[in-house]
């Protein structure tokens, strides 16, 4: 009987640890973007959508940004970090100012995005920033085609991490991140 109670108590503790581990994983996924949303700077960029679907997560629109492909001074291995500095041009659009392997100090009016290089030549390297897709309510993603231009509000923090805050198609809001 005592052995049973000891075994029971041991298992209860290990299950508590397992559940704590699970909650820890969930928090480690959720906390960094929340911090970015609170501490980052807002910018608005244009993008082109396509409309795939994910089994576990439903409708999503894949977003193609102008700054998602940059020119680099040297050859670059995929998986290496790339820092892309964006600044507003005379029309008010956010455009690439520079791109490189080192993090630059942004000037006033500029933001620096941190991404990861993918396979490509130095002349044109695709870069992923983790903002290449947005999940929308079921059935909404298929309405958009690559002919549509969407406006995406991003929040970018000091580390160059970006989170999608809002996506609009013309005047229609198709996605908005609401924390609380």
């Amino acid at each position, binding site marked *: 009987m005592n052995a049973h109670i000891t075994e*029971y108590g041991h*298992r*209860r503790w*290990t*299950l508590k*640890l*397992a*559940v704590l*581990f*699970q*909650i820890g*994983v*969930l928090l480690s*996924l*959720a906390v960094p*973007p929340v911090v970015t949303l609170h501490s980052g700077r807002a910018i608005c960029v244009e993008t082109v959508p396509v409309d795939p679907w*994910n*089994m*576990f*997560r*439903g*409708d*999503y629109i894949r977003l193609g940004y102008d700054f998602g492909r940059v020119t680099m001074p040297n050859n670059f291995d995929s998986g290496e970090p790339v820092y892309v500095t964006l600044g507003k041009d005379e029309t008010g659009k956010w455009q690439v100012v520079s791109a490189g392997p080192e993090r630059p100090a942004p000037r006033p009016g500029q933001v620096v995005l941190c991404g990861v290089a993918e396979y490509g030549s130095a002349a044109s390297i695709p870069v*992923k920033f*983790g*903002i*290449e*897709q*947005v*999940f*929308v*309510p*079921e059935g909404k993603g298929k309405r958009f085609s690559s002919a549509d231009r969407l406006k995406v509000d991003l929040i970018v923090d000091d580390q160059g991490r970006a*989170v*999608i805050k809002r996506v609009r198609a013309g005047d229609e809001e198709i996605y*908005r*991140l*609401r*924390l*609380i």
Partner: protein
Amino acid sequence: MANLTGKQQLLLTREIDRWHSESIIDESLADRLKSLYPERSFSHGVSSSLILVGAILVGLGTLLFIAANWQSMTLLAKLAVMVLATVIANYSGWCLRFEPGKRPRLGEGLLLLGSLFYGGSIWLIAQTFNFDSSFSTGLLLWSLGTLAAALATRLPSLGCLTAILCGLWAFDCDRFGIFATGAVEHLPHFLIGIVVCTGLAFYLRSPAVSWINMVWGGLWLMLWSPMHSLALLLWGVAILGAFLHISRTRPIFSGSFLYGGSIAALGALLIMTAGSSGTGSSDFTHGVFLLLSSALVVLMLVAVKQPARLPELTCLGVLVVAACLFSVAPEPTARLCANISLLSLIGAMIYTGIKRLGSAGMINVAIVFFVLDIIFRYFDFFYTMMDRSVFFLSGGVVLMVAGALAERGRRKMIDGMAA
């Protein structure tokens, strides 16, 4: 006293009642006979299945709810619901499963549901923050959390979920469409998944986990590796070799190892009779070297532990070396050698099953593959040579005769074994 299955026990009880009603035995003898085989509760299997299926349906419903991306709730509200659901399902599952006098099957279902809720929470967070569709990272985190719960509770259902998730992670679904190009990149996933799931199967003493492990491991090698059917053959032979040891030391796993290994090895040879198993690329050569070495190491280790099984292990060793050699031969030669190897393995399994191991399962699998081989060869040789109706008519007759002969032969062999 024989350990009867539920169906056998029910049949025996009915027969004893019939003998009693026909006055073949008296009441006291009937009671004594029945007491030798106490009644088992048949509702347990049904209730367990219903509860587990119910838990899976609730979990799937949760995932679909998340996939619908209902935007009326804020992130914090959705997250709070999911985390609370995970904690409550685990807590109530724990109380019902492990505290005496409660409902252990419902508790097991709730613990499984807790791990499904946990997985749902991962996808919810990924969806909310529009994480990159890196499918495998989510699966890895989900399988780690489920593994922790399985180790803590020692429940086979959680072990099965972990094995399925590990398998999906090893396949890396994002790139599922590009077969045979990601073998080297994903080999660490495969090795980690196999080692973890095998360890988990032994820790939980669960043949079900072992089965899932073998199925996804074999599929991975067949679909992902550049050697395809040759990789499956080496995998099957390694498992068959391990069976010769496991059947002595851990009999609970002997079924999964015997059937998993023999189906993989015979199936691979059957596929190889239809054509080439791969190419002569460097990936192919490296893969063959790696898998052949692994299979031979397994066979040698078993030979050290079970010297009485040396003849079987030597045959398996010769088979894998021969298969590696003929797989790079021109296609007609390779197909001929695959046919000879398949028939030799079938013959060896029938002989070993009857004379050395006394294993009806081994004989059954060998006979099934013999019949499959006849069907394959029939299609190979006669499909284009005869009128279609004659083809199907004569094929049907051949199969029926072969089936009857196989059944008679198998019965004779099994009767001989029993005698």
